[in-house]
């Protein structure tokens, strides 16, 4: 039981850190990888919360497919976020 709690805490922490990283970094590819880690951790959490169907979907769609879709779009546009206001 205690191990499960530790794993859960680790997943949550990693997920939040990855999310924060995804928002802060100015390299869009890193940001996409960050959001993919968020999805992956979420899918582990779904498994811990006894939702295997959702875990599978999230791993396949959230962590896999949407990452690729993002990467293709970045390839067709630009990779670095230019942070100039106005």
């Amino acid at each position: 039981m205690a191990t499960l709690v530790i794993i859960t805490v680790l997943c949550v922490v990693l997920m939040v850190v990855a999310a924060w990283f995804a928002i802060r970094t100015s390299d869009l590819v890193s940001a996409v990888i960050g959001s993919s880690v968020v999805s992956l951790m979420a899918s582990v959490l779904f498994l811990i919360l006894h939702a295997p169907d959702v875990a599978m979907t999230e791993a396949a769609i959230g962590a896999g497919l949407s990452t690729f879709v993002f990467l293709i779009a970045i390839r067709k546009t630009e990779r670095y976020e230019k942070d100039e206001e106005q």
Partner: protein
Amino acid sequence: MIERFLMNTHYIVLIGVILLLIIGFFGALTKRNLIKILIALGIADTGVNLFFITIGYISGKTAPIFSKNGLTASQMVDPVPQALVLTAIVIGVAVLALGLSIIIRVYEHYGTLNVSRIKRMRG
């Protein structure tokens, strides 16, 4: 109090959910890059999905599949949120793909992904 809080999977995940929502909405409201905004919204979406699953989870119960022998209905977590989240995830990826395709077009016209540099429509 803190012990009760930390030993309960619900609340650990719930904190994660709220942080994801905060980060997601923060990104969506303050970032200027269109792809970044979509990433942020995706994170918020993941947060909502996780929230749905959390409210369906009941400590000590197991997945809603009658595979092992002797598993009865009273030993299972709530299956409805799981079914709903399946739908929500698929809708999420649909919106995402469509959004990225429009973004590719926007980039083609404006040469930038920066919202403040994409000229506001007038007259």
